[in-house]
């Protein structure tokens, strides 16, 4: 029972991470496409300025909770996916310093360097996380000792790559919508136009991904056993449709909320399909890392549950406060302020 609760919490934490860091990774990726002038780019960076650091901590927490609740899954996942994880870390390091460094020196060349740092450092995590999760959905080549029998190229299979492209696009859409909400004028118009153009592409890609999922993975087995659970798929589908409607009405914050629902819904749909495995083995189901063989002791799971139930609502409360306090549009005045990027 405790293991199942933790499995769901594990999925929820990843979903929250994708929702929150997703939009700033998306904005970072779009810098060369939407940021025509230095002012545009400054608006883009300041649209996520107060938030990105707090968003990234959800990744640390998702990682930490994997470590605490399912140590074996943490060990297998992170050592098995060694190279993509290292690349993810490099990218996140470059992203973080780029945001912090770019505004420190007033020189176009200096800023160009860190603009690219922010772009690569945002694009790569989106891609790698997509590749990693698609491969987990498909099953990793894990032997009887939980040792990964593959390499980076193993992960770059059609389904893995489709997952990578899907994440990049989901985050790009998510970032675009956040930007439409946070910006004015030309940049706002360009972002709005992009959101309209991205939508059909996203619909097509999600369609392709779901078909590929049926072909490549066993994720749908859980759903076929309990068809009622297919309701879970209705959430992202509905969110996707309503999102288009809200974009049409130029209700940008609602559209962003629906994009968040879409990302969370797709993540949870995948995660629930994995149950009871955390990391299925593609070599043999017997070698899969499951909640039963990876979980921590009951004592640790109980203590961690207590800590989580007390602190996550507190974190949610003050992060909500942060979002409310800094929800205004980025204006000239905002850019002239202390600490602005």
């Amino acid at each position, binding site marked *: 029972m405790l293991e199942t609760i933790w499995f769901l919490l594990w999925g929820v934490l990843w979903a929250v991470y994708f929702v929150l860091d997703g939009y700033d990774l998306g904005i970072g990726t779009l810098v060369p496409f939407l940021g025509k002038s230095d002012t545009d780019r400054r608006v883009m960076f300041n649209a996520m*300025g*107060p*938030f*990105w*650091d*707090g968003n*990234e*901590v959800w990744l*640390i*927490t998702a*990682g*930490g*909770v994997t*470590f*605490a*609740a*399912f*140590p*074996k899954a*943490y*060990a297998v*996942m*992170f*050592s098995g996916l*060694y*190279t993509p*994880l*290292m690349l993810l*870390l*490099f990218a*996140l*390091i*470059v992203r*973080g*310093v780029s945001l*912090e*460094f770019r505004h*420190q*020196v007033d020189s176009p060349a200096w800023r160009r360097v860190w603009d690219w740092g922010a772009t690569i450092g945002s694009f790569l995590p989106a891609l790698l996380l997509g590749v990693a999760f698609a491969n987990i959905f498909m099953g990793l080549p894990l032997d009887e*000792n939980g*040792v990964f029998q593959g*390499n980076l190229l193993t992960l770059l299979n059609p389904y893995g790559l489709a997952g990578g492209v899907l994440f990049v696009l989901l985050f790009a859409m998510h970032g675009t919508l956040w930007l439409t909400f946070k910006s004015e004028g030309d940049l706002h118009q360009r972002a709005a136009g992009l959101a309209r153009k991205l939508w059909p592409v996203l619909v097509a890609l999600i369609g392709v991904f779901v078909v590929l999922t049926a072909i490549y993975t066993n994720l749908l087995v859980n759903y076929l056993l309990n068809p009622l659970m297919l309701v879970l798929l209705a959430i992202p589908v509905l969110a996707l449709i309503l999102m288009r409607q809200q974009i049409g009405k130029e209700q940008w914050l609602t559209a962003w909320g629906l994009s968040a629902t879409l990302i969370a819904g797709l993540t949870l749909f995948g995660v629930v399909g994995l149950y009871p495995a955390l990391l299925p083995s593609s070599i043999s189901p017997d070698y899969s890392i499951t909640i039963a063989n990876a979980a*921590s*002791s009951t*004592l*640790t799971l109980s*203590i*961690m549950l207590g*800590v*989580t139930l007390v*602190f996550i609502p507190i*974190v949610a409360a*003050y*992060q909500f406060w*942060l979002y409310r*306090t*800094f929800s205004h549009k980025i204006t000239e005045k905002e850019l002239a*302020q*202390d*600490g602005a990027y």
Partner: protein
Amino acid sequence: MDVLMLSRLQFAMATMFHFIFVPLTLGLSILVAIMETKYVRTGDETYKRMTKFWGKLFVINFVLGVVTGITLEFQFGTNWSRYSEYVGDIFGSLLAIEATTSFFLESTFLGAWIFGWNILSPKMHAACIWLVAIASNLSAAWILLANAFMQNPVGYVLRNGRAELDNFFQVLLNPFGWQQYVHTLSGAFTLAGFFLMGVSAYHLLKKQNIDFFTRSFKMGMIFALVFSALVALQGHHHAQEVGRTQPAKLAAMESLWETRESAPMYLLVVPDEKNEKNAIELFGIPGGLSFLAHGSFTTPVQGLKDWPADERPPVMLTFLSFRAMVGIGTLLPILCIWAFLRRNKLTETPRLLRAMLFAIPLPYLAIEAGWVVAEVGRQPWIVYGLMKTSDAVSPIVTSQVAFSLVALTLLYALLGAVDIYLLFKFAKKGPAEA
């Protein structure tokens, strides 16, 4: 080199690089919080300028601390997966609690602080930096409790082939962890104090912003005076704790080969690791080591030969790092006392100011050396007495680690250089005009 050695090098490099930035974060956050509180309470604009000037240096420093910290959390999984599996029950939960209770707090409110100057009320804005400061220092407690489990494992039972949590309170109250906490924090606060004094000394030597930098210097001085004394005094107790729980580490710190009663303390020692003796031992204080280690001049102190060769830590590195730490640790309070005596004649004492400027790297060196003593001295154990480092490494391909070690080193060197360039640039530039 094999996966083990490469992983050890990578972890050492990543930790030591991370720890260039963390101690300043721990101390400077509190100093900036004090400055802003003074501004809010008195309305004195100088304190506002101080908050902004030191706050900018704080933020530049903070970002590298954060991004390099993420690398560390994930390296347990990537490079030390067998360790992660073995102790995840306890070690993993401490890291997870750290993220949930502290890391969120500092990251969220730092964002609010950086962007909130014209949005939040002055009181709320000051509260944000206090939350950052408290959370950073709270974060250190969780990390050091996790480290203490590696140094002095408590509160566990061996079950199902791993260390499972048995008593959470024992883990939380691990005396080794709290000794390390006091030691690390006082060291970090000393470093921040010296950072303030050093940068202020530069400007005082140039006779610019005298009032601004005299106040900054004095704040740093009080901080460094108190905490450099504390770190030295408490370091002694910490060493005794090490002697009780990790006698092999203590023996390596002192390069003591034979177990002996009334063990003397030599002022000059040159270890000869190959021949299991010291090439030179000069100026012995009879019973000195026995007294330092156990509080009595006659109590025997265990020598390295009590352990089989493959259970001894590397002697030379541990020994030299310990000497470096203690040497600098002795010098710093003396410098603080000198500064204290001349506190009202700072600009008339250029020698003091120059000394303080050049002293900036010293606390950094002492702190890094201290961690070498703690971590290299713990070898060959990853969890003292429970699991060897060689059994902890991930079953991965050597080339992967070789690649990541080189790439990480290059990336860190590059970003570290840029960061230090920015710190220099803004430290030299001085505060904005009033």
